[in-house]
């Protein structure tokens, strides 16, 4: 690997990191897990003047549930931490389903959820999950912190809305108001492959009636797709064969896939529909089991 020359900094505090980013004036890049940045450096797709390695900043590797049910994921929490998380298995089925299908075990040991969101790859799995969950990002800059919904966080492919001197420090999944269900399905050609299609669904229900729904789609558009119409159609009633099929059709319509070496646009739309139905059928089953 022969990247262009860059200055390397390894700050020990958030403040120091933000100061370095400010000094970098837009020519500095944050290094978290490095699983996307390092390949870009290698291929010289990115040639930053400075790399700010945040791995020495203590206290960012957490993930936890607040008493009210809010889930918080620190900027250095690795995919593998989430894969092995008892908290997610108990509280958050969509995330629990997504974590083990991201990349491969080696990448999961280093890569971070927050880094994945910052990277804003339309084929990134976490962005769809977070959009389905209505999650947000906490950013910190020289003037303090702000919260940005993930749905607004991604500006375009590989572009986020952070200012050059802002650091994403945490991802937040809001506390649920009902019974939580959901899932994540991914079609990949091989373990470690990016998604040909990924579907994230997050539901909250009360007495069998859906009160909140979110559907995020991976790999079927220029950015992560928020399938709002499909999600909306599920709210206000129970899951039935018709509502499930309808949601599948609407999600497929909401996808904007392109034909490429992973498959034709028609095929990818079909997979979106199939996966929406499969996840929702699974939810019905688990709701029935719980009842």
């Amino acid at each position: 690997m022969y990247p262009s020359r860059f200055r390397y900094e390894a700050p020990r505090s958030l403040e120091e990191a933000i100061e370095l980013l400010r000094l970098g004036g837009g020519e500095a890049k944050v290094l978290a897990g490095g699983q996307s940045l390092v390949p870009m450096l290698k291929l010289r797709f990115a040639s930053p003047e400075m790399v700010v390695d945040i791995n020495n900043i203590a206290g960012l590797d957490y993930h936890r549930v607040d008493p009210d049910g809010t889930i918080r994921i620190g900027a250095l929490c690795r995919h593998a931490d989430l894969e092995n998380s008892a908290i997610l298995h108990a509280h958050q089925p969509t995330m629990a389903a997504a974590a083990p299908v991201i990349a491969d075990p080696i990448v999961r040991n280093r890569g971070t959820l927050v880094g994945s969101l910052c990277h804003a790859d339309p084929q990134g799995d976490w962005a769809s999950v977070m959009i389905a969950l209505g999650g947000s990002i906490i950013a910190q800059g020289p003037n303090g912190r702000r919260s940005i919904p993930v749905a607004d966080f991604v500006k375009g492919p590989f572009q986020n809305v952070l200012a050059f001197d802002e650091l994403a420090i945490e991802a937040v999944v809001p506390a649920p108001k009902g019974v939580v269900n959901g899932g994540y399905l991914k079609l990949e050609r091989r373990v470690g492959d990016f998604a040909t299609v990924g579907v994230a669904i997050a539901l909250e229900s009360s007495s069998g009636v859906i009160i909140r729904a979110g559907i995020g789609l991976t790999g079927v558009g220029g950015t992560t797709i928020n399938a709002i119409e499909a999600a909306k159609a599920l709210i206000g009633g129970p899951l039935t064969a018709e509502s499930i099929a309808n949601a599948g059709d609407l999600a497929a319509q909401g996808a904007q896939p392109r034909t490429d070496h992973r498959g034709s646009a028609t095929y990818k739309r079909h997979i979106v529909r199939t996966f929406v139905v499969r996840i929702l059928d699974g939810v019905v089953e688990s709701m029935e089991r719980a009842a």
Partner: protein
Amino acid sequence: MSLDEIKIGGMGASRRRVEDNRFIRGKGNYIDDIVLPGMLHMEILRSPFAHARIKSIDTSKAWGIPGVRLVMTGEMMASRNLAWMPTLSYDTQAVLATDKVRFQGQEVACVIADDAYIAKDGCEAIVVEYEPLPVIVNPLQAMAPGAPLIRDDKENQHDNVVFDWEVGDKSGTERAFAQADVVSKLDLHYPRSHPSPMETCGSIADFDRATSKLTVYMTSQAPHIIRAAVAMVAELPEHMIRIVSPDLGGGFGNKVPVYPGYVASILASILLERPVKWIEDKTGNLISTGFARDVYLRGEMALRKDGKILGIRMHTDSDHGAFFSDAQPSKFKIGLMHSAFACYDIPVAHLTARGVYTNKAPGGVAYRCSFRVTEAMFFQERMVQAAADDLDMDQAEFRRINFVGDDDFPHRTAFGFLTDSGQYGKCLDVGLEAIGYKDFLKQKEEAKKRGRLLGIGISTMTEPLGAGNSREYDILGIKMFDSAELRVHMTGKAILRTGAKSQGQGHETTWAQIVAHELGIPADDITVEEGDTDTAPFGMGTYASRSTPVAGAAIAMVSRKIRAKARKLAAHLLEVSEEDVEWELGRFYVRSSPDRGVTIQECAMAAYTNMPDGMEPGLENNAYYDPPNLTWPFACYIATVEVDPQTGVWDVLNVVAVDDCGVRINPMIVEGQIMGGLTEAYAMASMQFITFDEEGNCIGSNYMDYLLPTAWETPGFELHEVVTPCPHHPIGAKGIGECATVGGPAAFVNAVMDALKGTGVRNIDMPLLSDRVYEALTKRRDVSGMPPMRTDDV
């Protein structure tokens, strides 16, 4: 009492691989581990276009970067008559482009600098002005009237055809087809793939002005051929060239050819009088070095109603990329494609083959196979399944009635090969029993009623390994023999050198086992060394599964020469005549009183300390082995799969492999070779291919796009063995390095096609990616793959 052969690590011992001691400790000595004093680094600037005229190259900015020592372009190479080099197939290949670039990734310029980072900066600073030309990415486009001429550099080349070639009996085949009850037809594509060793190619050229000696450390599977080639191309005296092939991180045929990077690093070292290291990056390896396959088949089989095959007709169109640089025996233009159907008793066959140039990387290397045998066996076994289906016959039964019988050897195949041994029916029986054939067929019918698609695929084949015999097999005139040199030291320890070159096959382990078997010297007492042309005897290298059949035979033969001399020493020590001396493993004894004996070690000591009058001292010898025939291992691979009709995703349920590779030297290594080969077979069937878009951009230029299966998705394999010793090989071995890669893919594809039986789908070209399977299932039609890659919805 004779030695326990297994205990001394002889034949049949699953001896642990001795080379692994250094590999697993990170102490291997790969090309990039080698650091020479004063060494410079070279990087290559490659063409972004698949076909373009070079209008100008401006290197001034690169020269201006501190630390840049040399910038080389095609023009500069041309002034030394080195812009073009000969290929292994009597063609020429550009070292650095002068007139045009002819494929994406072609070498355009080189920068040599103090470190690789600066060299890379230097490449980025070179400005090349290109005028893009129309691009050809498949044989149809290449042969179309008015197609742009790719090789306008060649004087008598007026189209894009590389060769037209044929073999077999044309009129006889026509007669057979005229008598057929049924003619079964199948068109297939074996997609382009890349051997993709983990370690890329690289070299360190070290020209020493003081001694005039050129030493080149190089990732080569065939260092001796390289020495000859360098002597001829660079016009350096052969004795002043030393090629050292260190530990290789895989080869798979990719490291047989001569690449521009090697040549450029050699010239750079001569010009700069400093060592120059070139290490290719992964993308460079995937887009520019020897690819494999990329052959289209039009296949026809003449059949009698009862299932007997009457004749075969095959036509292949092969895509060789921009330069014909296939590494194969010179006589055979499409390799050993005509080894197809060798395990079946077929009266007559005819093959025509056309090769074309395209704007793709050159290569056509034998990726873990004997020269296009992989394509041959894949085509064969797909055609066999289609024929069985057309006749509505059981696919196992159809094979059985057409097999060459155990008593019919030697057997002359319809294309003229001589097969010499095998128990094909027995291997098939073992396979069917292991997979539970009858039960599975029942299970499949049951599943079908519930909407589940199960399938079973069989692939049986015998393939020619171990080129060659010198009458028929040569590369650029050099006969395809191999060699071994054995020196037994005074204390009975030994060093063995061969003309082969291990790339992971475990030669250091198994070669010592052959010596142990022949001489009774424990394998642990034998050092094996390969790859240094100054010390190793001349040999044609390791590829095409030829090491055990050829070099392995040479090892047995040289051991026997040593034993013959040791016998004389024993007679001397025992004070009897040679005729009265008997041999058992590791020991000579007096026939009439078996207690009186001497060990091989005692003989070795005598060779240096107590030889009889008139005997030349020492105990060493060499052997050059020219095999009388190819060897013919047989294999039967069976896979079962389940296809998800909603997504086209298929999962492997079971895989059974029955290999008859003759006598097994080290069963553990044999099993490793089979598992590795099956993994590659699964890869080809399911995911691994390189394609191109209309502009000739290579899709598959890194490991995110060029998919290699990992432990996570590779299915498990159940292995079985049948042993039919090779009748002409000194230890009865046949070779196993490639059987599973060659025979495996058809088993997986046949299984998926079997699952789709009855839907009207006859073929899906590899790889069977889920979208292709889904498309075939829903549209009920064949899905054939040919670049350019689809970019619009169909």
